[in-house]
C-alpha cells in the first residue's frame, strides 16, 4: 500500500514538474543558444583537451596514450618554467606602474583643479579602443634600433640607444610592459575615477577645513576607499594577464620563442608554438591544463589574501 502511495506521489511530482517545464517552455528556448553552443565549442573541448593531455597526437593518425608523461616532461621543461617566470614578471612589472599612474591621474582629474576633465579622460582612454595588432606595430616602429623614435630621443639626449631585441634579451620585457602600460592605463584610470566620484564630497571638505593637503587627501581618504575597486580591477585583469599572447607574439614575431634567451616567451605563446606550429597537441593540452590549474590556484590565493571585494557579485 505504501509503495503504491509512494509511486502515486512520485508520479504526481513528476507530472507537476513536467507541467512547470511545459508552462515555461519559452524560457528554455530563450536560454538554449548558450547551452547548445557551449556544448559544442566549450564542454566538448574541455573534456577532449583533458583526454588529449595524456596522449601524444599531432592531429593526424594514431593517438598514443602515454599516461602522465606529458605532465612530467612539462615540469622538467626549462623553457616552460622560463615562460611561467616571464609571464609573472611581465604581469607584476606592468601592473605596478599602471596602477600608480592611473591612480595619480584619476585623483588629479577628480580634484576639480584641472578643467576639461572629460577631454583628458577620452585622450587617456583612446589607446584601449585600438587593436593590439595596430598598437604593437606602432610600438615596433618606435622601438626601431637604428631609426626608432625612442632611440632617436635617447641619442639626442646624449644617451646610449637601446638594443631592444638583441643583447641578452633584457629589453624585450620592458618593450612588452611599456606597450601594455600605455594601452591599459586609461582604462584603469576611468575605473578609479568612477570610484573616486562615488566618495562623498563632504569627507574631502571636512579634511580640507582641517587643512589637509592634496597628497594627504589622497593618502588618507581616497586610497582606503578605493582599495576594493583596485582589487576588483586587478582580479579582472588577472586571467587576461596570465594568458597574455598578442603583445609578446607580435613584438617578438621576427624571432622565435619569445626572442633572445626566450625573454618574451609567455605561457600562452609557448602553448601556441607547441600546439599550432610544432603540432604537439597532447603536450600543448597538458600545458593548457597546467596553466588553468595555476590560474585557479593564484585566483584562490588572491581571494584568500584580499577577500571578495565588497559590491561584487
Amino acid at each position, binding site marked *: 500500500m505504501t509503495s503504491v502511495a509512494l509511486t502515486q506521489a512520485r508520479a504526481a511530482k513528476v507530472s507537476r514538474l513536467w507541467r512547470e517545464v511545459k508552462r515555461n517552455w519559452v524560457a528554455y528556448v530563450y*536560454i538554449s543558444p548558450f547551452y547548445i553552443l557551449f556544448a559544442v565549442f566549450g564542454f*566538448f573541448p574541455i573534456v577532449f583537451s583533458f583526454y588529449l593531455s595524456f596522449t601524444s597526437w599531432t592531429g593526424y593518425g594514431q593517438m598514443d596514450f602515454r599516461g602522465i608523461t606529458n605532465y612530467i616532461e612539462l615540469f622538467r621543461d626549462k623553457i616552460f618554467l622560463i615562460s611561467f617566470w616571464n609571464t609573472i614578471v611581465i604581469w607584476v612589472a606592468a601592473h605596478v606602474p599602471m596602477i600608480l599612474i592611473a591612480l595619480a591621474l584619476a585623483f588629479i582629474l577628480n580634484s576639480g583643479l584641472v578643467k576639461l576633465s572629460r577631454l583628458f579622460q577620452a585622450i587617456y582612454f583612446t589607446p584601449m579602443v*585600438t587593436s593590439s595588432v595596430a598598437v604593437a606595430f*606602432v*610600438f615596433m616602429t618606435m622601438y626601431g634600433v637604428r631609426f626608432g623614435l625612442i632611440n632617436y630621443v635617447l641619442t639626442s639626449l646624449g644617451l646610449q640607444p637601446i638594443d631592444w631585441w638583441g643583447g641578452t634579451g633584457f629589453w624585450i620585457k620592458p618593450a612588452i610592459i611599456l606597450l601594455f602600460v600605455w594601452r591599459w592605463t*586609461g582604462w584603469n584610470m576611468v575605473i578609479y575615477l*568612477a570610484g573616486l566620484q562615488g566618495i562623498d564630497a563632504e569627507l574631502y571638505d571636512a579634511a580640507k577645513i582641517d587643512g589637509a593637503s592634496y597628497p594627504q587627501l589622497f593618502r588618507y581618504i581616497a586610497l582606503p576607499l578605493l582599495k576594493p575597486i583596485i582589487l576588483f580591477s586587478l582580479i*579582472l585583469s588577472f586571467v587576461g594577464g596570465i594568458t597574455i599572447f598578442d603583445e609578446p607574439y607580435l613584438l617578438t614575431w621576427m624571432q622565435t620563442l619569445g626572442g633572445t634567451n626566450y625573454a618574451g616567451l609567455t605561457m600562452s605563446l609557448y602553448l601556441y608554438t607547441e600546439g599550432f606550429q610544432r603540432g604537439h597537441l597532447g603536450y600543448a593540452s597538458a600545458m593548457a591544463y597546467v*596553466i588553468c590549474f595555476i590560474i585557479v590556484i593564484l585566483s584562490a590565493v588572491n581571494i584568500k589574501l584580499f577577500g571578495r571585494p565588497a559590491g561584487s557579485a
Partner: protein
Amino acid sequence: MMSARLKTRQSRTAVGQALSKIILYVIVIIGAVLSFLPFYWMLVLATHSTQTIFHYPPPLLPGNHLVANYLNMLKVIPFWKNFLNSLIVASVTTFLTLLFCSMGGYAFAIYRFPGRNQLFSLMLGTMMVPSLVMLIPWFIVISRIGWINDLKALIVPGAVSAFGIFWMRQYVLANISAELVDAARVDGCSEFAIFFRIIAPLLKPAYGALGIMTFMGSWNAFFYPLVVLKKVEVATLPLALQILRGDPYRGGDYGVLMFGTALAMLPILIAFWAASRQFISGLTAGALKG
C-alpha cells in the same frame, strides 16, 4: 600627530595654490601627450617612404608618400575585402550576442522554471574556465566542421556569452518588473510578443553597452582569427595587417605598414571620438557593475 602636521599646512599661500595647479596641469598634459604621441608617429610614418623613414633624424612631420603607400599596400593585401570581413564578423557577432544574451538574461530574470538555479550556476561556472583549456580541441572541432578559412568560425562560437547573459539578467532584474510582464500576458500578448515588442525596447541602454563591448572585442580580435583564418582573402583586418607585415617585399616598408594600420584604426577612432562617453561607460561597465 597628524593634526600638528596639518596645522603647518594651513599657512599655504595663494602662490602655492597656483603653483600646485600648474604642476597638476603639467602632469595631465604630459600624460595626454604620451597617450597621443604613438598615434601621431603612426600618421607621420604613413605619409613617408622607406627612404625618408630610415633616415637620421627620423621624420617628425608628414611627408608626401601617402598615395604611394596606399597603392603599395593594395599590392599585398585586399584591404577593402579585409575591411568587409571585419565588418561582417563584428556586426553579425554583435547582433547575435545582443539577441541571445538579452533573451537568456530575460529568461533567467523573469521566468521561474525548473532547473533555473542549476543552469544559471553552470553558466557562471563556465566563465571561470580560461579559454586556453579549450583552444586545441576547439580548433579541431572547427576544422572538422570545415570552417577553417570561414568567417563562421569566428561568428558562431562568439554568438552568445555567459558574461552577456549575466549582465543582461542584472539589467532586467534592476529595471523591469515582473508585473509588467504579467500585465502584458493578461492583455493577451504572446510570450514572444512580450519579449520582442515590450521588453526589448526597454533594454536599449544595456544593448548599447554590451554592443560596444562586443563589437570592439570582435573588431580588434587577433588570436582566434590567427588560428582559423589562413588565407589573406578571408582575413579580418588585424590579421591582414600581420600578413602585410610578413610579406617578403613590403613587410619591411614601415610607411606601407603604418598606412594600413592607420586606415584600419580610423573607423574605430572616429566612432570613439564621436561617442566617447558611451564608449567609455560601455567598456568599463563590466568592471564597474560586475
